[in-house]
Every structure is written in structure tokens, then in C-alpha cells.
């Protein structure tokens, strides 16, 4: 497969799978991740898949070959692994359903998203929960998914004044992206709903419910269902 390597600082290297966000690049990113994970390399401390790249953070002291810099050794080892890697993932993508109570206190910006796009709030909910999204990457903060595939009809600019506190589980829209806040944090996204499901749990293994490569589908629930699920959490 085609890819290129470049350093990121002196402790990481980036495997570039493709130039743009598309399905072929996504499959390549998944294939690279699977191959590196299978190889179980002790010198790698972190594998971070993104839209078009896979970054490997490494410990240079574990690649201290005489006469050769750690980056060269790392490159050689990566080339060896990837030269025999087929373009496929060894995992079937999972589809994870995320229950969301839309509107009201849970989604205070649902009305303005509807208004901006000249739709009814019901139509916004329908479009937002219609088809599954692809989880391109997890990043920015613990458990935060970068989702691909939101319908353009509900795209809405960020709020002019970011909120100081966005509750955990809030589902929002920013431009043509949608996402979920796994932790309470400040934020400028248009909030259209909230999920009672924990996206990030330090006791769980892995700690994040969502992983890059998974599909995610939002399922509308009522406020009563939300409260019940929250109580059973």
C-alpha cells in the first residue's frame, strides 16, 4: 500500500495514509492500525489514528541501536510491517447506538438550529438520527468522537458566545459536524440533545465506549426514558 512517513517532534512519527478525508483513506488508516496493533511493538507508547494519518508515539531509548538514530530504526521497522499488510481491517466495524433525548433542557439550541435551516425541530431530529455516522477518530478530549456523515441540511454555525459549562453527554452541531461532549466542559456547539450513556469510564477497559472505525447511530428517546436510563447507570 502507498503511505509516507514523517517525524512529529523527536518522539513520534506520522504515517500518512492519504491526502483527503474519504472512505479509501479511512480503510487504509484502519488497516495500518490493525497491523501495528497485531505486531505488538513494545517501543510504541501510543497509536493515534486520525482522518488521514496514524501517529505512533515512541520511546527513543527503546530504539537505541548503535550507529543509527531511533527514527531511522522506527522507520525501517514500520516499513517491514506495512510492506506485508493487506488493505483490510481485521475487525468488523461495530454499530453503536447512542440514545438521545432531543430538545427542551437537554437540547436548548434545537429551536435555533431548526430556525437557521428553515426546518421544524422534528425534521432536525429525524435528519440527525437517520443514518449511522462513521467515527473517524477520537481526540480533543477523553472519548470525544469526530463523526463523519452529518446531513448538510442541518449544518449550523457555532454559537457566537460559547457556554462556560456544557453538561456531560450533550449532543451538538458545529458547522457541518456533529459530536458528543463526553465530559462537562466549556463549548460553543449548538446543543440539540443529551445522552444518558457514559462515553468515557476510567474503570472500563477500554475506557472509551467509542473507537475509531466504529459506526454510531443516534436513537431518539423521551425525557422519561432518559431519566430511567440515567437512574440505572
Amino acid at each position: 500500500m502507498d503511505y509516507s512517513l514523517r517525524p512529529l517532534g523527536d518522539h513520534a512519527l506520522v504515517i500518512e495514509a492519504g491526502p483527503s478525508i474519504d472512505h479509501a483513506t479511512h480503510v487504509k488508516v484502519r488497516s495500518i492500525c490493525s497491523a501495528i496493533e497485531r505486531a505488538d511493538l513494545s517501543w510504541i507508547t501510543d497509536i493515534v489514528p486520525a482522518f488521514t494519518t496514524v501517529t505512533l508515539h515512541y520511546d527513543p531509548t527503546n530504539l537505541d541501536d548503535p550507529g543509527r538514530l531511533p527514527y531511522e530504526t522506527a522507520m525501517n521497522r514500520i516499513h517491514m510491517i506495512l510492506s506485508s499488510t493487506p488493505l483490510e481491517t481485521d475487525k468488523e466495524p461495530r454499530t453503536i447506538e447512542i440514545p438521545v433525548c432531543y430538545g427542551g433542557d437537554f437540547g436548548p439550541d434545537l429551536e435555533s438550529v431548526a430556525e437557521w435551516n428553515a426546518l421544524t425541530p422534528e425534521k432536525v431530529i429525524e435528519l440527525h438520527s437517520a443514518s449511522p455516522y462513521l467515527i473517524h477518530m477520537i481526540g480533543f478530549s477523553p472519548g470525544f468522537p469526530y463523526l463523519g456523515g452529518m446531513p448538510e441540511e442541518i449544518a449550523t454555525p457555532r454559537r457566537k458566545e460559547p457556554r462556560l459549562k456544557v453538561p456531560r453527554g450533550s449532543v451538538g452541531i458545529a458547522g457541518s459536524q456533529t459530536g458528543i461532549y463526553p465530559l462537562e466542559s466549556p463549548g460553543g456547539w449548538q446543543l440539540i440533545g443529551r445522552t444518558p450513556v457514559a462515553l468515557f469510564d476510567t474503570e472500563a477497559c477500554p475506557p472509551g465506549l467509542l473507537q475509531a472505525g466504529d459506526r454510531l447511530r443516534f436513537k431518539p428517546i423521551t425525557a422519561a426514558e432518559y431519566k430511567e436510563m440515567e437512574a440505572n447507570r
Partner: protein
Amino acid sequence: MIEVLKPGLLTTIQDIGREGFQQFGVSVSGSIDPLAHKVANLLAGNDIDSALIEITLTGPHLRFHGQTLLSICGADLSPTINGVQQPLWKPLKIEEGDILGFGILKEGCRAYLAVAGGIEVPEVMGSKSTYLRAGIGGYRGRALQKGDRLTVGTPSSLSIKMGNALTRNPTTDWSIPHQLIDHSRSRTIRIMPGNEHGQFQEESREALFNQSYTVSPRSDRMGCRLSGPAIQTETHRDMISEAVTTGTIQVPPDGQPIVLLADRQTTGGYPRIAEVASIDLPRVAQAKPGDELRFAPITHEEAQRLYLQRERQLRELRQGISLKYV
């Protein structure tokens, strides 16, 4: 046990970081100045990565219940034991009931207090580091507060031998190599071109080397924010978000660069003009608000070579200390 009488400005428990969870968006955290962290542990007879106390700008006051050995490295915040001035970068003996205090900040920004046996807190995802933004790790996921009580681990046999030697003779007749201290005192930061370096205007790329940048008071464990000549890109191009690392210099639209530190996010979408050589991260860690930083170029090869050299010096220091106390 250590009782917190006064917490200081931002005092947290840190180890060397939480590795392996960046794919879930979890910051690495850990000590901002890994060099001072490692040396402090070695001087207390600990493993190099044991959990210790990171102190920022204003130090805490701590009462020790039980005698022990400790060391303080990094910033000079005028440490005292029962009011008596103490040296940095040395093993120090503490008796039951002693109070460790800190005074004025003379130099640097962050001090590292290692206690023999390390600070005992539960591991979260394989690390004892406090990750403030997620409220996990360290002592209850937060900075220390008045009244907190920290448990100390079992001291190693080396710590005990070092403590006994200090009881016989209160001054150590050895000191650690200068290279391991001096690095944190210079304000010149060596950098490599970042991935989006070519997208910046030529004047901006030159400004980075020819002018100095001031550390902003808005700096924190996530990033050292700089203010100075604005850095502009040639054209506004949205980059596709991807992984960033500690030392990445991101430039947001206001043109004021940010050096990402231990609590950085895992991925970013701002163009990266440069990457700080790991060997110089302690210098960034010790720059306090108002300090001026200057940048100088270094090659990727040289950065890796110098990092390996320093890690070898640390291994030699560890061996040297163990040999002295056989």
C-alpha cells in the same frame, strides 16, 4: 503520611505520564519538567518514574508525620524545613513533625518534591498522574487542598541507606552533574520545523528566531502560551486534524504561538510551525509568566542524539548513587 497545611497555587501529584490511551482522547499528563522529576526521584532513592509532588510558582506547607528522605529539584522557591533554608538538588532528611515550607520564587516555575517511597495514590489507567481537565488520577483527580493527607509508599533499601548516611553526616559530599541542572536555566529553546511550517509567511518564520516571545499568564499545564510578533500563514487553509505531541508549537488564528505541554489534547487542528526538541522541554517548563523565550534551530537528528545522551546521563547518575550507598 504528609499533611497539607497550605496547598500553594497549583500543587498536584504526577508521575511520568499516562501512556497508551491517547487513541481514546486521554492526555498523557505527568510532570511538565520530566528532567527535574527524574532527578528528584533518584535523589530520594526512588525509581525514576515514581509519583511525586509538582509545585507551581507558590509552594505548599506540608507537615510530615514520620521521618523520611526527600529531595526538591527544578524551580527555586526557597524551600525550608522548620524555617531553615534548604538546598535544591540534594537528598534531605525529614524528622517526625517537621514542616516543609516554601518562600519566594527565585528562579524557574515548577519545583518537584520527591519523597522516599513515592506518593501512594490509586493508579488510574496505569498512572498516578493528576489529569485536571478530566478530574482523574493523582489525589482525587484534583490539585491538593488544605487538610489533604497523602500516603507515602515503602522506601527502597537505597532510600534507607541514604537516610542513614545523612543521619551520620548531614551534608552530602557529592552533587549531581551540572548538565542535569543547567539545562533548565537557559531561555533558548531549540526547535525543528513543524509539519505546516511551509504554510507560514517568511517574515513570520524569521520572527520566530529573531525576536523573543513572552510567556503569557494564561499559560497552564496544557500549554505555554506566548505573546510576541504575530505569526501569520500565507493563506488561510484548514488543516485536517491529526495527532499533536508535547512540544508542538501550534499557531491559532490570533498568531500567538502555544507550546503544548503534558496536559495537551491528543489531536489538534491548528497549523504547527515548529516542534520543541524534547531535550529543551524542561526550559519551557521552567519559564514563568513574564519570562522571555528565544528560539534556535536544531535538526531532528541532533535532537534525538542529545535526548539519548541525556537519558544515558540519568542512567549513570542512578548507577553512581547506588554505588555510593552499597
